[in-house]
């Protein structure tokens, strides 16, 4: 029942995103309009995939570090992605894919660094290490980004900042295809980890006695969630709050079992970002808001409400 409701909401969000925009497309020309075919459809799909990736990554990371405040971007990835993007922009690398690829590489580098920091002794990934390492790596990358930006010229500075604010303006079919081909592997890794993640909620020792290799689980989930976040940031910049709020929202509806939670977080995240991007496109038309501002405006009050519910 709830599942059907969520799927319907997702479908409605996608239809809405394609149906409305800053310009009016008459129904008679709808199917043939290049605005719909080249711009709105791929943008709606990309928003859905990116939102889904962020929602799922957030839900999985919250479980693996056992901290409800974990957000894909808290773990240093945005800092690394930003640094990569800024370096590419400052170096003037040509081509539409140069910046996304550099951002992706930056996110992976940050992930590797945080991972290394969090390997406390030997091979155990320490969840506190992940959070603290993430914050530290994020701050360090942020400092380097500022340094690059202050030394680069004003054009690079502005472009880098605009890029970092995030948005789906560049959405096109090739980006949709790349993301759609890429996502299934990290998603499958996370969905396969659903039951062990339930057990991890009991604690490391109980999870072990119920058959979970906690160390391997942490490594797998952290890497897969990071890969999801990295591709999201590469194609859309840093879009905050989706990865933080969506897991909490779907938990309230679908409970804490990750087999239900992770797919719901994907659909929920996709729905939220598709709607937020639609708002970003139309609300101040012909201008456009950065979509991260919309997710923050919707997300923060929602989050405050959830926090009130917990503490009440």
């Amino acid at each position, binding site marked *: 029942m709830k599942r059907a409701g969520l799927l319907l909401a997702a479908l409605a969000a996608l239809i809405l995103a394609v149906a409305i925009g800053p310009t009016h497309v008459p129904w008679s020309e709808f199917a043939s309009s290049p605005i719909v075919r080249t711009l709105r459809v791929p943008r709606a799909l990309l928003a859905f995939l990116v939102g889904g990736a962020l929602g799922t990554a957030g839900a999985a990371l919250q479980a693996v570090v056992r901290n409800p405040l974990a957000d894909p971007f808290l773990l240093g990835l945005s800092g690394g992605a930003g640094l990569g993007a800024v370096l590419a922009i400052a170096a003037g690398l040509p081509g539409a894919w140069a910046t996304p690829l550099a951002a992706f590489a930056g996110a992976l580098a940050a992930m590797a660094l945080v991972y290394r920091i969090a390997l406390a002794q030997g091979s155990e990934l320490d969840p506190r290490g992940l959070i603290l390492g993430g914050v530290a790596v994020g701050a360090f990358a942020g400092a380097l980004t500022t340094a690059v930006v202050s030394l680069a010229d004003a054009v690079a500075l502005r472009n880098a900042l605009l890029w970092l604010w995030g948005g789906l303006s560049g959405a096109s079919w090739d980006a949709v295809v790349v993301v759609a081909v890429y996502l299934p592997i990290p998603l499958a890794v996370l969905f*396969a980890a659903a039951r062990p993640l339930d*057990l991890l*909620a*009991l*604690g490391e020792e109980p999870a072990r*006695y*119920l*058959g979970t290799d906690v160390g391997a689980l942490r490594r797998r989930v952290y890497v897969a969630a990071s890969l999801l976040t990295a591709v999201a940031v590469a194609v859309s910049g840093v879009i905050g709050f989706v990865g933080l709020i969506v897991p909490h929202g779907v938990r309230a509806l679908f*409970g*804490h079992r990750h087999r239900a939670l992770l797919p719901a977080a994907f659909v929920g995240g996709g729905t939220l970002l598709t709607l937020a991007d639609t708002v970003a496109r139309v609300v101040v038309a012909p201008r456009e808001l950065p979509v991260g501002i919309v997710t923050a405006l919707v997300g923060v009050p929602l989050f405050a409400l959830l926090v009130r519910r917990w503490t009440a």
Partner: protein
Amino acid sequence: MDGLILELSGVAFRYPGTAADALSGVTLAVRRGEVQGVLGPNGSGKTTLVRVALGAHAAREGTAMLLGKPIAAWSLGELARTVGVVPQREDFVFPQRVRDTVALGRYPHLSAWRAARDADRQAISRALERCDLSALADRWVSTLSGGEYQRVRIARALAQEPQLLVLDEPTASLDLRHEMELFELARSLADEHALGVLVITHHVNLAARYADRVLVLSRGRPVAAGPPDVLTRAVIEEVFAWPVQIELFEGRPQAIPLRRGKDGA
């Protein structure tokens, strides 16, 4: 060797970065249908013993065998299908119903993509029944009493369909009735379902009443091992550092702690 499930011989273990062994010279056997008690004061190495026995820590000396196979050779999944553990501590993180909590015990039997089947549901029902929880199956765990919650955790371990059940301090912070109910449950699981049960406890008298054999640990070293008769006054006083008097009740020793300066101590 008949019915032997778990066997430790001459086991020693030292935590990294410490100078002294946390366990040394520990020998233990748990058989099908038997309750084995491990007794000792707080900090005597009882929980460490469980960890070494189940491969969470690797023994420095000696061997730990489960069903005749070295514990290190067991995969975690196999292990969880053979041994059900109720750890001393676990986090109570989110609201869930009794049945769902017990269902976690089926996870070792499910592959990543397989949904629960009838066999799983039946195992859950059986586990609930054995722990006398059927009536509480749809209650939220947060509304249970401490004793009921411990039974839920035992039911979860039973849902694993293990051959060996390990209970680590199961009666900590329970009142008399719930203590008794838990040991009765442990006993009946051994008697009626032929499980091997390893109970870690500091309750001398309960161990003496319910266990077939006891191992007494003090600072990681075995002080006595064997049937409850080994719980002599000298052993108890040495290990727990308090004067006691031993009385026999139904042939089993019961330690009565003496008051300081009175009772002739």
